[in-house]
């Protein structure tokens, strides 16, 4: 039963995973944390950090992790396959009329229409992490601001910034 639920939820997440990794976070939070309580909010944040530190797209990493926690190796396999399934199927359909697909006016308008939602979803993910306790004190604010400045001005690798921030956390929160 739990496997069927994993399948249904992660197919849904895969189907609406538009616009790159972060835009999918609100949907994962809504379903996995709020509706199904498969992860606490704290664990959700940990999964986000872990996916940034391991190879692979965030939606797939989250699927594997949640699947494992809920149903072991079998659960993680089901969740991972489910999250990929919609896009694989859509590509296999679309690949036969590639050119027509790209220039189709409906497709173009849908894609343009998606953009504001993608930006709003990503912004809401940032807000939700701050509000959910991701930044809880002045030290957190400083780490966040410094990371942001390093990211924007020095163009440092995000993974490096994340590891440095984590190490700073270990030092300042003793």
């Amino acid at each position: 039963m739990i496997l069927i639920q994993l399948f249904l939820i992660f197919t849904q997440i895969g189907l609406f995973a538009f616009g790159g990794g972060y835009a999918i976070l609100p949907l994962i939070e809504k379903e996995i944390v709020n509706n199904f309580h498969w992860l606490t909010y704290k664990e959700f944040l940990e999964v986000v950090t872990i996916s940034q530190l391991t190879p692979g797209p965030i939606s797939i990493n989250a699927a594997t992790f949640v699947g494992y926690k809920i149903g072991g190796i079998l659960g993680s396999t089901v969740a991972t396959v489910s999250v990929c399934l919609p896009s694989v199927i859509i590509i296999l359909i679309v690949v036969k009329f590639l050119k027509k697909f790209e220039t189709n006016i409906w497709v173009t308008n849908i894609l343009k229409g998606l953009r504001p939602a993608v930006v709003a979803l990503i912004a809401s993910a940032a807000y939700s992490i701050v509000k959910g306790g991701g930044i809880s004190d002045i030290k957190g604010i400083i780490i966040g601001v410094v990371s942001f400045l390093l990211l924007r001005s020095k163009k440092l690798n995000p993974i490096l910034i994340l590891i440095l921030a984590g190490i700073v956390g270990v030092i300042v929160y003793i």
Partner: protein
Amino acid sequence: MNVKEDTKSKLDLLLSIFIVFFKIGVFTWGGGYCMLPLIKNEVVEKKKWIGSEDFIDGIGVSQSIPGPIAINTATFVGYRIYGTLGSIVAVTGAILPSFAAIILVAMFFLGFRELTVVQNFFKGANPAIVALIVSAVIDIGRDALKKYREVIIASILLFLLLYFKIHPILAIVISVILGLFLGEKK
């Protein structure tokens, strides 16, 4: 004899599709766009499995449908090389490294996660995650919101998401419907 060799070369091809995409999967850290040059180098330049133009068309489609771009591109390229079976092999190869990494992390991490040092690491990393996401909002917003209308729609959707807690899928649906109504007609 001939049939045997034929089968062998087919297996060889599938195996090399698997290996190439496995390699790509290993190096896909933090966001799909970084590994597009890597995929191109492997499948277009080294293996010459598909042409450069076809690859670019494939990326265009990969960006426009749901799902991570790495997986979409793997599906597309795999299909071009060996049909549906090629897709499945390519996607499996691309996913396997992250799958294995997360399983390993999950196995060990779930035992260590309550340690103070681990918790403090996350406490330090969380603000950096916020910084990464805010930075993504700026980059993607600059690219995606070209008209005032789009900025207004994005702001309204953000408001609905934060204050009325609408379902993220509803936000996507509203945005698409508005796009269809307000988009070019021809």
